[in-house]
């Protein structure tokens, strides 16, 4: 016991030195293969956890259980509708535009989600693609067929962290369809909700309107679906109104995500 007690300070000093070496990057030969192995194993484990989480959510929410199929269908139809609207606008603009850039060259980089983070200062995901694959900060991350869920916050060698749109730091330039293309900034709130603020009172917003990216933000093209308007908050004295935005169902606990590494802005 006395030998064990005398080893305690030595163990603590070794631990401190190990952390310092790790922080300085000196332990890369040990941490790099471990990271590779961990990210490989973590993806299916995360899928199990995410599926279990969805199952528990459905178990405690009967209404959601009944509505799941309908919600998915509505999501798909809204997506299609949003795309068609944007295509109509884009088509008109392209007829008069000079030097049209073909977007067919865009190849989204598919990544597996390996972990989630729900800390007070960071609500996000960790994906198994990093700087080695051309991932950089602020690149948009989508799921499914074009639903934006966030942006790359930090890219490391084999992994990247994605800041979700619901995080308090998240800002995304968006436009509301069927409201004369009203533009605004979508803001997150502590990982719980998303809202568009500072919309003039003169603009008519209706719950159910689709919110898409406006394309004025560098690196993020126009027309990527974000969510639907849930509630509109108006105060008579206030010159502006705000709207709460609900994310699409398929955006929660995604198993795969796509990083638009070479996205272009459509004017």
């Amino acid at each position, binding site marked *: 016991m006395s030998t*064990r*007690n005398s*080893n*305690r300070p030595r*163990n*603590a000093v*070794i*631990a*401190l030195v*190990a*952390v310092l070496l*790790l*922080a300085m*990057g000196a*332990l890369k030969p*040990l*941490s790099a293969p*471990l*990271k590779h*192995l*961990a*990210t490989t*194993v*973590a*993806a299916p*484990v*995360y899928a*199990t*956890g*995410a599926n*279990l*989480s969805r199952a*528990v*959510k459905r178990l405690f929410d009967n209404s959601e259980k009944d509505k799941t199929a309908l919600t998915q269908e509505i999501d798909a139809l809204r997506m299609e509708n949003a795309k068609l609207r944007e295509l109509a606008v884009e088509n008109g603009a392209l007829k008069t535009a000079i030097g049209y850039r073909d977007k067919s060259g865009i190849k989204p980089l598919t990544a597996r989600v*390996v*972990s*989630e*983070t*729900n*800390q*007070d*200062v*960071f609500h*996000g995901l*960790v994906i198994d693609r990093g700087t080695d694959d051309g991932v950089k900060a602020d690149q948009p991350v989508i799921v499914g067929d074009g639903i934006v869920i966030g942006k790359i*916050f*930090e890219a*490391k060698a*084999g*992994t990247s*962290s994605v800041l979700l749109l619901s995080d*308090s*730091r998240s800002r995304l330039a968006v436009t509301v369809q069927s409201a004369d293309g009203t533009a605004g900034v979508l803001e997150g709130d502590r990982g719980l909700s998303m809202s568009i603020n500072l919309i003039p009172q003169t603009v008519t917003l209706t719950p159910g309107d689709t919110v898409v990216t406006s394309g004025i933000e560098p690196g993020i093209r126009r027309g990527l679906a974000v969510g639907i308007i849930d509630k509109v908050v108006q105060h008579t004295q206030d010159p502006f109104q705000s709207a709460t935005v609900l994310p699409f169902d398929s955006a929660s*606990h995604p198993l795969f995500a796509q990083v638009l590494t070479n996205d272009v802005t459509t004017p």
Partner: protein
Amino acid sequence: MARAFLLFIAAMAVGILQAAFVRALPLPFSGLQLPLIMIVGLVTVFRTREAFVAAFICGLTLDSLSSLPTGTETAVLLALTVCTVMLFGRIFTNHSLLGTASLNAVVFALGHFAFVVVDLTRSVFTGIPYSPLPNADSSRAFLYALGAQIATVIFLLAVNDGIRKSVSKRFFLLR
């Protein structure tokens, strides 16, 4: 050698389970801290060296699957191992169920506090608004997570006890 390899695999598995599985679960289960249960278990059964090695490997695994700066999770786990060793050696010296559960509860609270400090430090450096003071929601989430942690510890102790009893019954002639 085989024991060291087993420890390595177990620590890594706990890290992967924590980062990929537990964090995806709904509340209060997403607040569970499996690495802390492992560290307390190792400190109370094997003492310091095994606990430090496991904390380091588990921390490296967590760091590779985390959005925090590299080394943060490892540093927090190693610091908590030091705290666990001190608490077990000086305060919670009893191997009883109450003693083990209390040690787990205190280490869990210390772990929560450590990540509050990490978040606060991060908010200072990144300019993110963050209040370390608990509010009603965060207090409730903490208490639920603590309850889940203690329930998990008691469950694991019961399983361990059951296995030991079963094995000792089977080999009672060897005793």
